[in-house]
């Protein structure tokens, strides 16, 4: 006769005692004769100790309660899935990093992709644009059109938007610091082309706060960065309710070596800063949260850290919205995750090994609940420009996970695993403790201003690097099973100077022919709004229509807000 499981879990004394017995009689003697291969065993990023065995007693010790901590798919706290039927009704959207030659004519590339049947496009800009400069500014020599499109004025976007918009469902614009300027340009370009903004979803990344903690594409001091991001958020909520005004790219914290608890806590605390600022504009949480719940999260090679992180993310968001803000609508309580294997786990050496790594990480994503979509990086991304074969292999990988492994056939299959539930709960608890710390400092903006995130990440960066150098972490191809004769060349994208020269000429010629006094007046109105707190999007809209340039608008705001120049303490160095 089988005893019901509940009967065991309440008799934890028995299990704990039995575990001790097992340790003393069975495992202990074995280990004495066969010493363990690691000391201590720890998880990869958090470096939390890993026990030899997890049992129901561990769940009890963690205060685990199935109904409270795990629940059911599509229901609070959404640990198992935000979707009522997991991936059984439809798989996650499978997307691919295409990474075509950057700087290429974006419109040409976009048209090609739409012809291939893709219905979503990403607008990425060069470093001149993302840092708020025009192409002819001496500061950006050599950068124009390199990392993405050069966007100096509305004219550039008018040219880029020469597309069959009827084939387009989704457009993402990755801009961050000057996002309100960028948003204004996009709206103006759509107007000029007579395109109905209701016909597709524009998703602006607008994630300036994370940029202060790592990556570093900011312009203005943090409080002003937040203000202008909120202007864009408010504008979209009120004027384009079918658009998405934010994406928290938690994945950016990973190259900065954030561990999973930091990823969850930092990105959620940062999201709260946007939420709080938007609530102050007179909107309520049930309206606001569904707009601000987009998160891009990567998994790294530690299989269980990745899976538990995704589960913990869902749970923490739900709890945060409910407990901190009193949200009630499911749309407000459900996080929207976009998942991906991380590129930082891939090696330059022995690139074919990366296919295996990607397969493992993609499986982890699927097991953790892949969210809205999963993106596969390319296995040779570390050193080369995209080759057709790599693209094909990357795409096939997701289909193999989806169709051949069976991991998505039931919802959240690893739930109930003693290890997985223990680790998930521990992550959740640690993330909440960390968030409390940040809230006690006055919130994410204050934490950024004091350098808290940056210093924490700087420490992690150094520690992890030492782990690698001193052999505490084994990385195949890099410090383990190294091929002596291997010499891997890095291909970089080389831009011909002509492209930059042409763009510089274009923007100068534009300035010469437009109505300069109209531009001056418009820029002054932007400064005015910056000073008195008016929403910057409408005044930017007017200004871009008279062909004020991107750099001029960013400078107008520099005049009022100043620029952010952190000393090394604040940069985490």
């Amino acid at each position, binding site marked *: 006769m089988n005893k019901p499981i509940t009967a065991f879990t309440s008799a934890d004394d028995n299990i704990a005692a039995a575990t001790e017995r097992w340790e003393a009689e069975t495992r202990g003697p074995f280990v004495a004769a066969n010493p363990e291969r690691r000391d201590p065993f720890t998880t990869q990023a958090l470096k939390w100790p890993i026990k030899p065995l997890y049992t129901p007693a561990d769940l009890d010790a963690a205060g685990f309660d199935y109904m409270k901590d795990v629940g059911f798919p599509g229901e609070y706290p959404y640990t198992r899935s935000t979707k009522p039927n997991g991936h059984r009704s439809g798989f996650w959207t499978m997307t691919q990093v295409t990474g075509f030659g950057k700087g290429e004519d974006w419109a040409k590339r976009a048209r090609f992709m739409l012809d291939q049947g893709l219905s979503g496009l990403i607008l990425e800009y060069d470093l001149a644009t993302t840092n708020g400069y025009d192409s002819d500014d001496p500061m950006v020599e050599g950068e124009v059109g390199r990392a993405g499109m050069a966007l100096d004025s509305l004219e550039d976007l008018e040219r880029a938007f020469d597309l069959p918009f009827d084939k387009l469902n989704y457009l993402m614009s990755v801009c961050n610091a000057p996002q309100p300027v960028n948003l204004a340009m996009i709206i103006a370009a759509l107007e000029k082309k007579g395109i109905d903004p209701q016909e597709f979803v524009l998703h602006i990344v607008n994630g300036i706060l994370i940029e202060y903690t790592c990556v570093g594409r900011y312009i203005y001091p943090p409080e002003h960065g937040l203000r202008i991001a909120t202007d864009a958020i408010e504008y979209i909520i009120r004027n384009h309710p079918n658009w998405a005004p934010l994406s928290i790219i938690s994945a950016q914290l990973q190259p900065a070596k954030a561990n999973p608890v930091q990823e969850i806590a930092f990105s959620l605390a940062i999201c709260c800063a946007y939420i709080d600022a938007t609530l102050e504009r007179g909107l309520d949480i049930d309206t606001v949260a569904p707009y601000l719940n987009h998160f891009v999260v990567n998994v790294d090679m530690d299989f269980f850290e990745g899976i538990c992180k995704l589960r913990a993310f869902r749970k923490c968001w739900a709890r945060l919205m409910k407990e901190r803000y009193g949200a009630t609508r499911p749309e407000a309580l459900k996080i929207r995750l976009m998942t991906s294997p991380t590129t930082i786990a891939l090696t330059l050496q022995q690139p074919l090994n990366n296919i295996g790594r990607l397969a493992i990480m993609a499986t982890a994503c699927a097991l953790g609940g892949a969210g809205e979509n999963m993106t596969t990086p390319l296995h040779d991304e570390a050193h080369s420009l995209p080759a057709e074969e790599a693209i094909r292999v990357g795409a096939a990988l997701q289909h193999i996970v989806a169709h051949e492994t069976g991991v998505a056939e039931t919802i959240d299959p690893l739930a109930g695993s003693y290890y997985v539930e223990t680790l998930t709960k521990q992550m959740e608890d640690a993330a909440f403790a960390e968030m409390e710390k940040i809230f006690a400092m006055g919130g994410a903006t204050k934490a950024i201003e*004091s350098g808290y995130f940056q210093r924490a990440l700087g420490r992690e960066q150094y520690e992890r690097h030492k782990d690698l150098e001193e052999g505490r972490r084994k990385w195949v191809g890099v410090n383990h099973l190294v091929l002596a004769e291997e010499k891997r060349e890095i291909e970089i994208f080389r831009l011909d100077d002509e492209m930059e020269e042409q763009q510089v000429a274009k923007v100068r010629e534009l300035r010469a022919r437009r109505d300069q006094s109209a531009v001056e007046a418009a820029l002054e109105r932007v400064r005015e709004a910056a000073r008195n707190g008016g929403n910057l999007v409408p005044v930017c809209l007017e200004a871009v229509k008279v062909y004020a340039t991107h750099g001029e608008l960013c400078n107008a705001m520099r005049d009022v*807000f100043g620029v952010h*120049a952190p*000393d090394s*303490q604040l*940069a985490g160095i």
Partner: protein
Amino acid sequence: MTDAIADGLLKGTIAAGARAIRWLDDRDPRGAAVIRHIFPATGRAQIVGITGPPGAGKSTLADMLVTELRRRELRVGVIAIDPSSPFTGGAILGDRVRMGRHTLDPGVFIRSLGTRGQAGGLSRSTHDACLVLDAMGYDIVIVETVGVGQDEIDVVNLAHTTIIVGVPGLGDEVQAVKAGLLEAGEIFVINKADRDGYEAAWRQYELMLHLREVSLGAAAGSWPVPLLRAIATAAEGGVEIVDAILAHGAALRKEGTFARRSGLRDREQTLALLRDHLARRALSPAGEAVLAEVEARRIDPYSAVERLLAELDGKALTT
């Protein structure tokens, strides 16, 4: 070589001044030779110390002051000090990042120094570095202290004008400023004045300054200590603070105490150098032998000092 450097810096050549400061910081004997050479050309520059608790925004404030001083066509030297690791002796010196806009201005010289084991908020070489910048012709030399604790009173002896920077939201605002600084500061600034708690911080400082005046009485002197507000990130407050700096310099010169302050500073430096020198001389083999006796607890420290002095007595102070 030292003559070339000394002559170069007297002409205002940056590379020469930078090399001289390096020698002094490294305790290279050529540094002392340079000081001997340039000393007569010093005494003109007004040394302005900026000190305050961590998070007060000293670097940003210094950056704002440099901008305003340059607007008035004054030449400015800046010495920014950061802590050296007590274990490795290494340091990360990051203050100049905040003053990046001035890097290419020939009228501004920014130099970063590590404390190299010195307590008190400054490095051992700070005084000498000020002399170098003075001799190079800078009108104002800003010294920005480490700012990690409350023991930063060395700057008071060094500077003609000490600016104490406070910031709202630190809790008990005034507690963050050590007693010695409260008495000796000449200009008080509350930075980040747009923060919550600004009113409360202002009132506390006002009260503190009033009490200070009352308790010092006549000793307070004739300089009316101003309490100023600033939002350095928005470039607000620079004009008033620079007005105060220049007014204080003028007041000292008018009173005739400017030179006296410089002189007192050099006197302190002499004693410091002497202490330093004696301590280092004691670490000779003969000296080590005496110290070994103390370590073994066979003699007491006072007797040890007498013996060490006796050891050193016969020897002339060499260059």
